[in-house]
């Protein structure tokens, strides 16, 4: 019953979405408030029904109802409860249901909190949301129904893929989807603006918080996924330039560009056409990512060709939405009036430069990800595009961008003074040169690029602090004044400083990890000692342990540094009984921001075990940077400008009544 109920709720949600995608538009055309307001109720009702459907699938997984195919394929009664729940989205059908749930959530939020939007804009936005929702409900119901029953229910399930049995699955996909799908709101706003043929700075102010929310989640989602891959895969890498990762990086790059260009639009009423285009592109890239990951086209073009139903369906959705929105854009964009003028050297100019580089970086990832597919389809030739290509093309694009980052906030709107900005950045420049000199003098090995990379990172971090110091008049004014100014500084200023500093910190982590990473590969027997980066790791012994649905072989290492005993590390190798697969659980030991990392290989015939040990200096900064960026985003989100900037008719009315 629960499965059928969930299925039915999803069908009802489709019905509601179809109403929501048409009736409000008619209402807007006839200027009928009641019809336009239908969008609000249907969006909320849609959220309710999708939530019911999702809850149904969760219930089926939690109660281990193996008569449902999805539960049978991805769950097992012995699995710990947390993995029974996360297993809901650890598969194709469930993750698509999560996708539409989050889409409905965002639609519901716009409906519930969009009271300050003009009625027709809200109707248009929600209608466009409903187009997307309808397409994906249809996709799930036709090709990927998670509620299918098995005629002859088995007694036990096949277990969730062991690699996915990790806390990372609980956090990473929902965050990533909140980011991906969150950009649908800025897409809907852009389409609504094109349909209405109107766009003004207030539009940017309404869109910005939604874009910011999506960006925060996407940033955290990508960082979380990277850390998960780092500790779960067991070879110490944290970014592989894999097509699946690139699929999430592209919307992030475009979304970051969008955040910056919408700032120009909000403040100066310029870059309207470009901002609209970016909104469309960002969500298009999210859709593209969904297509790449969900169609199987990445595994091989041939796999895609043998079972094309899903892939072709998503490709169709992709073509309709991207093609349709770009056509609409081409037809309407010229009607949008251009706004304020600005000189090339100005805050606007800096933000345009930011957009140029981010867009090019995005295009690079795009072409690198899709080129092998396109070439194989067109000519049959197979080539590979992997990490070495991206490292070579991506880095030269990011270096000038990072150099420019500290200058941006220092320049004035409309017409800036580059020399003045450089003078005010003197402190950051000195800090950077100092860092380069120190690293140069102390570092062993690593070539000339590493100190420069660290210097650049320090420049970005110090530049962000420098900007704050300038604004509060640090050391130039009495301390009390400085403090008062710091309190009075807009949160968004703090936010951008934190986000920029996060970028620099991540860069420092990346440079340190790639340059001074040391490793030990060898076969060890109990009592053997491995030496890595000054640490001594002694293999004490191995033991067997029984987990809930796996058996594991645990090795125990004692870590000492200069004779002082620091910790015991216990990496393990798990064998999952149901699927007969094994995973490697790396052991991590953090000291400051650096980590020791042990992963186990196979046991050898003579009682030894192959071991790989890494010392990764300052590796944690790679993820601390994005967390700081997301924190900056949250600060910016709490800026009162975003909350009180737009007029609220309801409250104004209350004010009038009180006056009488």
């Amino acid at each position, binding site marked *: 019953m629960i499965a059928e109920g969930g299925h039915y709720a999803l069908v009802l949600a489709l019905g509601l979405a179809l109403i929501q995608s048409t009736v409000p538009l008619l209402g807007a055309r006839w200027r009928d408030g009641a019809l336009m307001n239908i969008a609000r109720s249907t969006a909320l009702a849609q959220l309710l029904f999708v939530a019911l459907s999702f809850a149904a699938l969760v219930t089926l997984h939690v109660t281990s109802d193996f008569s449902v195919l999805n539960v049978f394929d991805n769950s097992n009664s012995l699995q710990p409860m947390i993995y029974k729940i996360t297993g809901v989205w650890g598969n194709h059908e469930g993750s698509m249901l999560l996708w539409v749930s989050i889409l409905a959530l965002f639609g519901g939020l716009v409906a519930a909190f969009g009271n300050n939007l003009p009625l027709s804009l809200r109707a248009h936005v929600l209608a466009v949301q409903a187009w997307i929702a309808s397409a994906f409900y249809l996709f799930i119901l036709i090709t990927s129904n998670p509620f299918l029953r098995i005629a002859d229910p088995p007694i036990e399930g096949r277990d969730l893929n062991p690699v996915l049995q990790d806390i990372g699955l609980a956090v990473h996909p929902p965050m990533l989807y909140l980011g991906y799908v969150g950009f649908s709101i800025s897409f809907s706003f852009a389409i609504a603006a094109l349909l209405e043929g109107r766009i003004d700075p207030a539009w940017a102010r309404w869109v910005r918080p939604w874009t910011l929310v999506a960006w925060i989640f996407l940033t955290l989602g990508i960082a979380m996924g990277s850390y998960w891959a780092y500790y779960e895969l067991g*070879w110490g890498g944290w970014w592989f330039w894999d097509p699946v990762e690139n699929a999430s990086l592209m919307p992030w790059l475009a979304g970051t560009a969008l955040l910056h260009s919408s700032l120009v639009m909000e403040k100066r009423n310029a870059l309207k056409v470009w901002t609209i285009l970016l909104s469309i592109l960002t969500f298009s890239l999210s859709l593209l990512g969904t297509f790449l990951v969900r169609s199987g086209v990445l595994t091989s073009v041939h796999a895609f060709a043998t079972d094309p139903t899903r892939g072709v369906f998503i490709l169709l959705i992709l073509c309709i939405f991207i093609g349709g929105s770009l056509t609409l854009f081409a037809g309407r964009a010229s009607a949008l009036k251009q706004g304020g*003028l600005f000189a090339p050297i100005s805050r606007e100019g800096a933000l345009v430069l930011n957009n140029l580089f981010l867009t090019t970086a995005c295009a690079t990832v795009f072409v690198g990800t899709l080129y092998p597919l396109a070439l194989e389809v067109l000519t049959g030739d197979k080539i590979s595009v992997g990490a070495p290509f991206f490292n070579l093309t991506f880095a030269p694009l990011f270096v000038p961008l990072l150099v420019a980052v500290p200058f941006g906030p220092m320049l004035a709107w409309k017409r800036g003074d580059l020399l003045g900005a450089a003078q005010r950045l003197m402190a950051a420049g000195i800090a950077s040169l100092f860092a380069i000199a120190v690293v140069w003098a102390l570092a062993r090995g690593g070539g000339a690029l590493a100190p420069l990379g660290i210097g650049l990172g320090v420049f970005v971090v110090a530049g962000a602090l420098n900007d704050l110091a300038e604004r509060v008049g640090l050391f130039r004014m009495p301390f009390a004044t400085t403090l008062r100014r710091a309190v009075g500084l807009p949160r968004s200023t703090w936010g951008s400083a934190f986000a920029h500093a996060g970028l620099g910190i991540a860069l420092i982590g990346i440079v340190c990890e790639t340059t001074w990473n040391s490793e030990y*590969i060898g076969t060890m027997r109990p009592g053997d000692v491995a030496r890595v980066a000054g640490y001594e790791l002694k293999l004490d012994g191995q033991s067997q342990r029984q987990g809930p649905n796996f058996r594991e072989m645990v090795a125990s290492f004692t870590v000492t540094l200069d004779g002082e005993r620091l910790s015991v590390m216990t990496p393990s190798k798990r064998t999952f009984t149901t699927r007969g697969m094994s995973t490697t659980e790396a052991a991590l030991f953090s000291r400051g921001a650096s980590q020791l990392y042990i992963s186990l290989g196979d046991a050898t015939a003579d009682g030894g075990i192959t071991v790989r040990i890494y010392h990764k200096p300052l590796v944690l900064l790679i993820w601390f940077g994005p967390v700081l960026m997301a924190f900056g985003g949250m600060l910016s989100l709490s800026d009162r400008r975003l909350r009180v900037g737009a007029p609220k008719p309801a409250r104004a009315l209350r004010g009038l009544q009180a006056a009488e």
Partner: protein
Amino acid sequence: MRRMLATAFVLVLIGCASAYAVQPDEIMSDPAKEARARNLSRELRCMVCQNQSIDDSEAPLARDLRLLVRERIAAGDGDAQVIDFLVARYGEFVLLKPRFEQQTLLLWLVPPFVLVGGGLALWMYARRRSKGGPDVVPAALTADEEARLAALMSADVPAKKP
């Protein structure tokens, strides 16, 4: 991230992933040669895996390729010769960084073209605008806003709030 997103992808990886690649018995005695082998390994693709270099992959094929690379290095080949040898045997597919050739022209040229093209477009746009292009025109009010404005203007609004 790659873990979760593609179930199909994960299934492929299972054959390849599981911890690690270079085995103790493969390591060359000369550290300089071993370092060269490692660097070359990172540029070469394990052809049965999903986007993994032979340095990362645990698949048997990757091991064979690693041993082959080391064999060639031990035989005195230069880096370019080793790469040529592998490409002659396994095709361009083995390279994670494609060579600059006719069929990869677009791949290599898109990034600089977008950057230079975008820069040029911006420059021309800025020039056109500074020579007095379409100026700032305030957007007209919508019919809704006109109606609200009219209503506000005619309504008896109290002059002051308490």
